[in-house]
């Protein structure tokens, strides 16, 4: 990936994460890692976002919220599951209220490992998501410029 064709905007939702991954997602935006210099913005509105970053596992209460945010995003969209909880349920896997990873509710394109996931890993995940996004553009009959 030698260039970024577009500025990818991402929307972040904390499913039932312990905050560890969430503050690392925020840490990616701040001066040490500073992904904003590549045009990556963390925004609140799902309708503006290309990439959906989910941390934490799925439970009964937030299932519909995740689905709702995903449905509001315009195509093409990519889902990045950040951290052990979002990929499989992680340390909370056996808890009675945890149903498992985010892929139980919505299709996930990129899985980022780690507990908590390191900012480097999250950035790598987002960069891989851009590749998937480009692929999805092509499949829709459009080419990113």
């Amino acid at each position, binding site marked *: 990936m030698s260039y970024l064709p577009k500025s990818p905007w991402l929307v972040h939702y904390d499913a039932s994460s312990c*905050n560890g991954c969430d503050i690392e*997602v925020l840490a990616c935006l701040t001066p040490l890692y500073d992904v904003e210099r590549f045009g990556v913005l963390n925004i609140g509105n799902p309708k503006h976002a290309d990439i959906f970053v989910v941390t934490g596992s799925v439970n009964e209460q937030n299932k519909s919220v995740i689905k709702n945010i995903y449905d509001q995003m315009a195509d093409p969209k990519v889902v990045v599951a950040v951290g052990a909880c979002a990929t499989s349920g992680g340390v909370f896997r056996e808890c009675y209220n*945890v149903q498992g990873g985010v892929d139980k509710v919505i299709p996930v394109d990129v899985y980022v490992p780690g507990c908590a996931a390191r900012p480097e890993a999250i950035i790598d995940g987002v960069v891989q998501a851009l590749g998937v996004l480009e692929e999805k553009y092509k499949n829709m009959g459009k080419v990113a410029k």
Partner: protein
Amino acid sequence: MGERTIIPFGPQHPVLPEPLHLDLILEDEKVVGAVPSIGFVHRGLEKLVEKRDFHEMVYVIERVCGICSFIHGQGYCQTVEGLMGIEIPERAKYLRTIWAELSRVHSHILWLGLMADAYGFESLFMHCWRVREKVLDIFEETTGGRVIFSVCRVGGVWKDIDNDTLKRIVTVLKDVEKEIKELSDVFIKDYTVQKRTRGVGVLTYQEAIDLGAVGPTLRGSGVPMDMRKLGYAAYGELDFEPIVEKDGDCYARTLVRVREVFQSLDLIYQAVNKIPDGEIATKVRGNPPAGEFISRLEQPRGQVIYYAKGNGTKYLDRFRVRTPTFANIAPLLKMLPGSDLADVPILALTIDPCISCTER
């Protein structure tokens, strides 16, 4: 008198990384009521004590919350040690104190950044988080993790910090102190910032006590209560006074946190000077006996209560956490009615909510 409207705030909201959900009842621009709904982060991890033995449980309890993870681990270990009657070595106590105070520094700087973001001061947010990274570097160097350390164990700690590293940490923290001083001037003296915080969301002395507020929310209303004064870990040997502000508004609570950053840095300097040499862990024999134990600690967000009940096996019967944010939700609901809709994010932030602690 306008018509009443209900505006949902959250669960996905740009100002908070966490899912806090409030139904705000509005009359024109004024909030007249707020109904919280919870359960978005509930995992039920207290129940895991039945599946994980008391040593493994430390790592689950640390993940109650990723911001105050160390103090959760420390609180759990302290409770189980109390139940088993274990006395941990002096050096371990000091190391725990140092990590706990570093956690407080990083948590308060993080909060200051989020607060700046809440009133739209983006560059201040960035600066706060830039300074915070220096503290995280210390964590990474001494424990291996940036946010979750897994360094506490029942009976002591896993890792030692050698005395040269401790001295170097102090020099790094002196730099941090200088930078925080510059940044805190903006929070304390800036005219525009004060416009957003002064006189907003006043919680009086009596209300704070009646509603059971804890931590900076309580101390911002003039109540000098700090669990560190109980003297757990090494706090009994360090010299400090609870930080108190009288006004009870957002400005007072900001000021309490700013001053607590300097207090925590001072506590670390004191601890580094006094830390004794020796073992960092005692051997733990046997299982927690039948019985109960309660311990109270001061988290960045306030008082936290741990309860453990043993039954003689390696699995605890029950473990319970009462987190500070849970106690502070009642004061928040007191502050919200009468405020402007635009002030709601600031008010919600001012109690430093940690939803994943509250719902576990």
